[in-house]
């Protein structure tokens, strides 16, 4: 490794020099910071200032630079030195903007500034410039699991971008549900009539595409490895195994209709004249094939009246059926009603709904149906009974406010979709635990669950992608809908959330985009979202490892397996660089080049802790860099003041907090530690999904440590922070500081 040459740069601009004694800061950088070069500048982010730094890098051989000016979130384009290790001392947003400009405050403000300079120096000395993952795969072939509309779309779109695709379909033909549709909901102006389902055309394009290799009657037997170097075993019809090298994976395994047999009260199973939407598509296809109108299944007689029951077994609040709405069924019933009306306008078609949901241009489709004479009634169906060849549908008409009993030749139940995701991992892992304990039932259960596995990942944390809600596969959902906890494995179509064909195709195109991106970045050793492009990756000193498995269990992204000797086996290209493993490691053998126990620990130690008589407590704040730290920054920008005794260190995620930082701080005489992380739980806001949750779990154990040290447990406080807490966070800090001041000074000062 090249010689280390350190430098500290202190900006005087934005009134820093008016508010603090910059010379003293420089002294701190030289004396305590022990920097080889220390320079002040009136306007460090100016062209001249930047040139000064660049010159030191080019001609003075500076390898590590502490830039003490504004927040790391500001002036990023100016302070951009890719080949140099950079730390930022936040003197502006972090000090002078959150302190009053008064003589009284001057001393504490100065101390604060000096500490931040020391911390920046300490941090940068502990950093390395990330060199990137030496262990990249570089395979650029995409695996798409599922040959329905979503899967076919992903395959075609990826190929169109110039990538090879392996498309695996478990049935004997491509097309999935869509192929079973007589027609599909219109996809373009004027949105008035059903369209051809378009499957045959897509299948033809796939067969003609030399980039796409299709396996029919095939499933994934095993998926091993990492992004850019997956080794996939495909079980094909003959029983043989085909091996493929894969860069990224799209799971597009679609859905099944909710089982209408669970709805006897709606007459399903009691009469062949009560069908679900798929059943009706079948009737429509057969009729079309025979060139006849759709007939009544029970006796083949013509249909004079059809009733469509929306939300059958959906939007259920009793916990018996599906709680969610499947989104596509209103348009589908409209389409199916048109099957009848387009053939013979005299056939009565009635759609019974509570809320008709035809968003966007679906409104045109709705109007078109009304225009064709489809009748829509707002009503709740309580019962469907069948006698002979007719059914009678009981419902409450919510407009005319009366109970109605109407006769129909055919009743169609809109039952909605159930995702074809793999086994739910928590349940599976629990079953595994019991099975290992010798529970026979559990063993059964495991076998049965594993039979549902889609990907058969060899990951320590389970064979499939974790699920999020209602059995749909993982999704960050709002800002980053494609993000899953399995790097380079993306979900497309109804396996991710209920959706119609048009959306599924859009979704599948987006998933292809993400998968292609994942392959490209895996090949370069770059992290995927949210630390996209980050070249740092975790390294472990195995000699120190006690095989406690915490890292392998906690990694939110299943990046760490166990090798034959039960040591953690890091799969760097699965890693998202959140540092949860580092936080979890009790023996602190895991670190990143630019983020480690030491980069933070040395900052904690760099802070000057006055003695117990000074009445100047020290409070350590470890703040999530994604939400809490920006909130503190903006508090500064809005000049919200907070206590001068806090020292803030940004962390990648609460999950990366190693308890040693807390104990070190307390042993070092800090009076309190405040941890700021994102909301966790069902509506989590953590960008590493489970990071803040795991961090909090870990911290819940710190109480004992404190007791052991005879300290008040309140000295360590965990606050949930949102990025908008700009005004409230300073208040929380001040309240906490007041609490700490109400305690006697830490007995550990001066040791």
């Amino acid at each position, binding site marked *: 490794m090249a010689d280390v040459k350190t430098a500290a740069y202190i900006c005087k601009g934005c009134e820093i020099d008016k508010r603090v004694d910059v010379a003293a800061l420089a002294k701190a950088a030289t004396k305590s910071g022990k920097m080889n070069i220390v320079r002040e500048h009136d306007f460090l982010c100016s062209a001249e200032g930047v040139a000064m730094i660049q010159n030191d890098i080019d001609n003075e051989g500076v390898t590590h630079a502490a830039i003490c000016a504004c927040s790391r979130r500001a002036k990023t384009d100016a302070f951009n030195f890719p080949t140099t290790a950079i730390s930022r001392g936040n003197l502006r947003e972090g000090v002078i903007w959150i302190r009053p400009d008064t003589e009284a405050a001057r001393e504490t403000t100065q101390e604060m500034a000096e500490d931040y300079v020391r911390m920046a120096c300490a941090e940068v000395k502990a950093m390395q410039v990330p060199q990137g993952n030496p262990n990249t795969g570089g395979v650029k072939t995409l695996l798409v699991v599922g040959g329905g509309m979503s899967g076919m779309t992903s395959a075609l779109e990826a190929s169109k971008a110039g990538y090879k695709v392996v498309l695996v379909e478990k049935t004997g033909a491509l097309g999935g549900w869509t192929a079973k549709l007589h027609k599909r909901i219109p996809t373009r102006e004027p949105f008035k009539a059903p369209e051809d389902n378009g499957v045959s055309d897509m299948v033809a394009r796939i067969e003609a595409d030399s980039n796409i290799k299709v396996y029919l009657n095939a499933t994934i037997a095993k998926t091993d490895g990492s992004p850019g170097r997956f080794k996939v075993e495909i079980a094909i019809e003959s029983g043989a195994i085909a091996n493929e090298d894969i860069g990224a994976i799209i799971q597009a395994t679609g859905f099944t209709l909710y089982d209408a047999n669970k709805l006897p009260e709606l007459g399903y199973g009691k009469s062949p004249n009560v069908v679900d939407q798929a059943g009706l598509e079948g009737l429509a296809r057969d009729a079309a094939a025979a060139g006849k109108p759709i007939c009544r299944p029970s006796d083949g007689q013509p249909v004079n009246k059809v009733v469509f029951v929306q939300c059958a077994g959906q939007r259920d609040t009793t916990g018996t059926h599906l709680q969610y709405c499947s989104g596509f069924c209103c348009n589908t019933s409209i389409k199916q009603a048109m099957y009848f009306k387009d053939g013979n306008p005299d056939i009565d078609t009635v759609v019974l709904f509570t809320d008709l949901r035809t968003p966007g241009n679906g409104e045109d489709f709705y*109007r078109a149906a009304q*225009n064709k004479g489809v*009748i829509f*009634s*707002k009503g709740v169906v309580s019962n469907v009974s069948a006698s002979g060849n007719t059914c009678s549908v009981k419902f409450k*008409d919510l*407009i*005319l406010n009366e109970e*109605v009993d109407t006769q129909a030749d055919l009743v169609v139940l809109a039952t909605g979709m159930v995702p074809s995701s793999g086994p739910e991992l928590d349940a599976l892992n629990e079953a595994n635990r019991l099975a290992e304990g010798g529970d026979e039932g559990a063993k059964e259960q495991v076998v049965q669950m594993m039979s549902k596995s889609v990907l058969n990942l060899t990951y320590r944390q389970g064979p499939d992608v974790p699920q999020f809600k209602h059995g749909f596969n993982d999704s960050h959902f709002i800002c980053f809908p494609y993000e899953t906890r399995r790097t380079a494995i993306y979900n497309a179509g109804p396996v991710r959330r209920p959706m119609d064909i048009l959306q599924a195709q859009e979704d599948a195109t987006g998933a292809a985009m993400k998968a292609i991106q994942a392959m490209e970045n895996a090949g370069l050793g770059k992290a995927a979202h949210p630390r996209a492009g980050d070249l740092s990756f975790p390294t472990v000193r195995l000699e120190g490892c006690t095989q406690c498995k915490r890292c392998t269990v906690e990694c939110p992204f299943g990046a760490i397996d166990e090798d034959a000797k039960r040591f953690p086996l890091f799969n760097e290209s699965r890693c998202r660089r959140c540092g949860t493993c580092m936080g979890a490691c009790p023996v602190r053998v895991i670190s990143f080049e630019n983020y480690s126990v030491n980069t933070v620990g040395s900052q904690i130690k760099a802070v000057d802790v006055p003695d117990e008589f000074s009445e100047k407590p020290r409070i350590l704040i470890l703040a999530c860099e994604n939400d809490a730290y920006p909130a503190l920054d903006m508090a500064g920008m809005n000049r919200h003041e907070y206590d001068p005794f806090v020292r803030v260190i940004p962390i990648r995620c609460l999950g990366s907090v190693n308890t040693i930082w807390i104990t070190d701080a307390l042993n070092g005489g800090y009076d309190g530690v405040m941890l700021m992380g994102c909301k966790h739980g069902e509506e989590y806001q953590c960008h590493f999904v489970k990071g803040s949750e795991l961090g909090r779990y870990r911290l819940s154990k710190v109480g004992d440590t404190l007791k052991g040290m005879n300290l008040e447990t309140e000295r360590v406080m965990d606050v949930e922070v949102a990025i908008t807490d700009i005004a409230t966070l300073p208040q929380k800090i001040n309240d906490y500081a007041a609490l700490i001041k109400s305690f006697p000074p830490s007995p550990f000062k001066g040791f």
Partner: protein
Amino acid sequence: MSDLNQTMAARYQNNFLKEIEEQAEMGEWVKMCMQCGLCSGSCPTNFQAGWDHPPQEIFMMIRAGKRDEVLKSNSMWMCTSCYNCYVRCPRKVPVTHVMHGIAEYAYRIGQSPKNQPTQHLSKTFWDNCTKTGRVNEVKLTQSLYFKDGIGAGIKKAMEMQAVALGLVKAKRLNPLEAIGIAHKCKDIKGIQAMLAKANELEAQRKAEKAKA
């Protein structure tokens, strides 16, 4: 009259919506309603008594096949032809005309409420203006007052005396019209012939529609 009603009822075997679509002027719009209620809320008479069913509810009742309730309803006759519903309807349903159309149909097949005052006005007005080609306001007024018989008529006339006198003073009511000395068209014969033909054709068309 009422046998025409039976014929229709039979012809459309309780497919009342179809009956309205084919027989009532603008009836084909009934199916387009999405039950938002904007028409009902926009009706100037809405906050007075008398509306047993507002337009959007009438439309729903038609779809639900409530034939008698609709045809015998007073509601359509409450329309003031203000066209508020018509211009606001988010589905561009010409509500005013649909209501008129349903009313006219109910009346045509003898199902509308007996002695419905607006209906009486409607008939009186039309008879009056087609008789001479122009409205004879006095006769119109008289025939309206005396619709419930002489006694009621005089009573009403007394009530309205002030109004009438005011108008006479203002030369806006010409008592002579009462004895027929009033504006009329020259070619009354032509008009009568024209209307006879029009009525004949109209009846013919409606019958054709019903047969189809």
